[in-house]
C-alpha cells in the first residue's frame, strides 16, 4: 500500500542537511508574544474605562482604594527592573556571583510585591463580587499578579541556572536571561499603566 509519506532520505544526505544555520529569533518571537499579551491587558483596560464612563457607581457601593500600599508596590517593581538590569551587566562581565546576588534581590522584590498585594487584598473593604468596579479591580490586578508570580518563578529558575560552574545560563548562553528580563520589564510597564488607570484616574 502506498501512503502519504515524504520520501525517506538516506542517513548520509540527511546528516548533511540536518541543521539550518540561522540567527536566533527567540527574542523576536517573545516580543510578538508580549505584544499579544499586552493586547489582553489592553482589552481589560478598555473594559474598565468603558465601565467607568458608562456605568455609574451606585451610591451604596463600596469601592475605595488606598494609595500608600500600591505606591510602595510601584516602587518595588520599578526598583526590581533596575536590579535585573544590574544583574545583566554582571552577567556580561562574567561575574556570576554578583549576577546571582542581584537576581536574588530582583526575585525577592517580586515576592515582596506579591506579599504586599496579598496584604492589600485582605485589607480592602470590598470583595470580588461586591460590585462591578470591585470585580474589575480584582480581575485586573489578579491577572497582573499572575504575571508577577510567573515572572518571579522564572527569575528563581535563572538564578539557579546562573550558578557556577554547572549552570546553563552564562555569558555565552544568555537567551534565558534576556527573555526573563524582557518579560519582567513588560510586567513592570503594565503595572505602571495599571497603577495610573486603576488607582490614580
Amino acid at each position: 500500500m502506498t501512503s502519504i509519506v515524504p520520501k525517506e532520505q538516506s542517513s548520509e544526505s540527511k546528516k548533511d542537511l540536518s541543521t539550518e544555520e540561522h540567527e536566533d529569533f527567540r527574542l523576536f518571537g517573545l516580543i510578538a508574544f508580549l505584544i499579544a499579551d499586552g493586547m489582553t491587558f489592553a482589552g481589560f483596560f478598555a473594559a474598565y474605562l468603558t465601565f467607568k464612563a458608562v456605568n455609574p457607581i451606585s451610591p451604596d457601593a463600596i469601592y475605595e482604594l488606598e494609595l500608600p500600599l500600591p505606591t510602595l508596590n510601584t516602587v518595588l517593581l520599578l526598583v526590581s527592573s533596575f536590579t535585573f538590569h544590574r544583574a545583566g551587566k554582571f552577567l556580561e562581565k562574567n561575574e556570576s556571583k554578583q549576577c546571582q546576588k542581584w537576581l536574588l534581590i530582583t526575585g525577592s522584590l517580586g515576592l515582596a510585591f506579591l506579599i504586599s498585594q496579598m496584604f492589600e487584598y485582605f485589607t480592602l473593604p470590598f470583595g470580588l463580587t461586591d460590585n462591578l468596579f470591585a470585580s474589575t479591580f480584582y480581575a485586573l490586578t489578579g491577572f497582573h499578579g499572575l504575571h508577577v508570580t510567573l515572572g518571579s518563578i522564572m527569575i528563581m529558575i535563572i538564578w539557579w541556572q546562573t550558578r557556577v560552574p554547572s549552570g546553563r545560563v552564562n555569558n555565552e548562553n544568555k537567551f534565558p536571561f534576556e527573555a526573563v528580563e524582557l518579560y519582567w520589564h513588560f510586567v513592570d510597564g503594565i503595572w505602571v499603566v495599571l497603577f495610573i488607570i486603576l488607582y490614580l484616574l
Partner: protein
Amino acid sequence: MTISLKPNDSPPEKLQPTGWLKYLSFSLDHKVIGLQYLVCGFLFYLIGGSLAGAIRVELTSPLSDFMPREVYNQVLTLHGTIMIFLWIVPVVNGAFGNYLIPFYVGARDMAFPRLNAVAFWLIPPSGLMLITSYFINGAAQSGWTAYPPLSITTPAAGQIIWILSVLLLGGSSIFGGINFIATILKLRRPGLKLMQLPMYCWAMLGTSILVVLSTPVLAGTLILLSFDIVAHTGFFNPSLGGNVIVYQHLFWFYSHPAVYIMVLPAFGLVSEILPIHSRKPLFGYTTMVFSIMGIVVLGLVVWAHHMFTSGTPPWMRLFFTIATAFIAVPTGIKFFNWVATLWGGKISLNAAMLFSCGFIINFVLGGITGVALAQVPFDVHVHDTYFVVAHFHYIVYGGSVFVIFSSIYHWFPKFTGKMLNENLGRFHFIITFIGFNLCFAPQHWLGLNGMPRRVAEYDPQFQVINQISSVGALLMALSTLPFLWNILQSILYGDKAGDNPWNALTPEWLTSSPPPVENWEGDAPLVIEPYGYGEKNSNKIQEGMK
C-alpha cells in the same frame, strides 16, 4: 565496545515514527504538521457539516419536530464554533501556511518548529472537549458569539467547556501567528526581498498580525465571561450592574478580524492558483500587497458594524459605516486583479481552477451583500435575520471553503506525489456549486422577509423556501462523497504526479513530490519572480534552480 556510532546519530531520531504513524506523532516537520492540520480540520468539517445537516432537516418544517429546542441551540452553537475555530481557521492558516510558507521563503522549516507542533496538538483535544460537552450535561447554547446575558443564564457546564475550548484554540492560533510572522520576516533565504515573495506570504503576514493583535482580546473577554458564569461577578450581567455592550465590543474586536483571518489566507491561495492555471503573471502584485495591508488596518476598526442594533450612538454608526464601506476598496482591487489575471489567459478548466472561479463568483456576491449590510438603515432592517446568515456563508463557505477545495486539488500532487482524478473533481465542483447556491441564495429572500436566524421554529409562509434551501444542503453533503472517493482512490491508485505537474514557478514545485524531509536536496532555489508565466525570459528567472 566498538566505536561505530557516529556522534551525529542521536538516539531520539531513531525513535521518531516513520510511515503513516508520523502523522500521529509530535513531528516537527512543517509538512507533516501542515497535513496534520488539514486532515484534522477536514474531520471536524465532516462533524460540523453533519450538524449543519441536522439544522437543515429541522428547518424543513416550521415546527421544531426533529429535535427539541435546547438541542437545536446546542447543534447551532457547535456547528458555528467547529466550522470557524476547528475547520476554516486551522486549515487556511495552519494547514496551507505550514506546508507552503517555508517553501516560499526558502527555508527548511518554520522559525519555531516545536512551538508549531504545540500549536497543532492543542487543536484535537480542545475540539474533542467541545464535542464531548454535548454528552456531558449538554453543550453551550448561546451560539458561537456567546452573547451575555444569554451565555450566563444557559446551563453553565457546557458554556464553560466552550470557553475553555475556544481559549485553547485561540492560544494555538496565536502561537501559529507568531511563528508565521517570524518565518516570513526573519527566515527568508538571503537575497529574497519582501516584494518578491509569493502573494500567500503577504496574506499570511497580514493574517498573523491580525491574529496576534486581536485574539488575545477575545481571550481576556472570555476569561471575564467565565468569571461571570463561575464566580457570579457582574462584568456583563446587567442585573448585577454590568454592561453587555462592553462584551459585544470586545468580542467583535476579535471576531470581525476573525472573518479576515478566515478569508485573507484564502485570497493568498487563490492568488497562487489563478496565475498557474491561466499561464499569466499575477496582475497588480504591488496593489495586491497594499490592499492586503489595507484590509488588515481597516479590519481592526470596523467591528461595531455588527452592533448597529445594540443602541450604538449615531457618531459610532457613522464612523463604522464609513470604515466598513472603505474595506470594499482594497477588496474590490483584489477582485479586479484576479479577473485581470484570468483575462486573456490560457485557462485550463481543471478542478482547482473551477473552485477558484467559483470562489470569485461567490465572494463577489457575499461582498455586495456585505457592503449593503454596512449601511445602517438596511442593517437595522435585516439584522439577525437569514440575510446575515446568507451573507456570511457566501463569504466563509463560498469564499474560504471553495478555496480550501481548490487548494487541495492544486497541491494534492505535491502532498502525495499522486494526481487527483480531474473529472471527479469537476463533478465535485458542479454539485458543490449548485448545492451551495441553492442552499444559501434563497436565504437572502428569507431574511429580507423577516425570518430570524438561530430559531428552530418559523412562520409557515417560509416553508417552501426553507425546503429548497435544505435540498441545496443535501446536495452539498452529497458532494463530499465524490471528493472523498477521489482522495482515497488517488492515494492508492493515482497516476504519478512528477515534481511539477502544473509547470509552476513557485518554489514548492521546484523539489520532488512529496518533498524530502528538509525540503530541498541542495540549496533552496532563489525565486525572485514567482509569477513569470508567459514571459520570454521566464526560464532565466529561476536563478539557483538546479
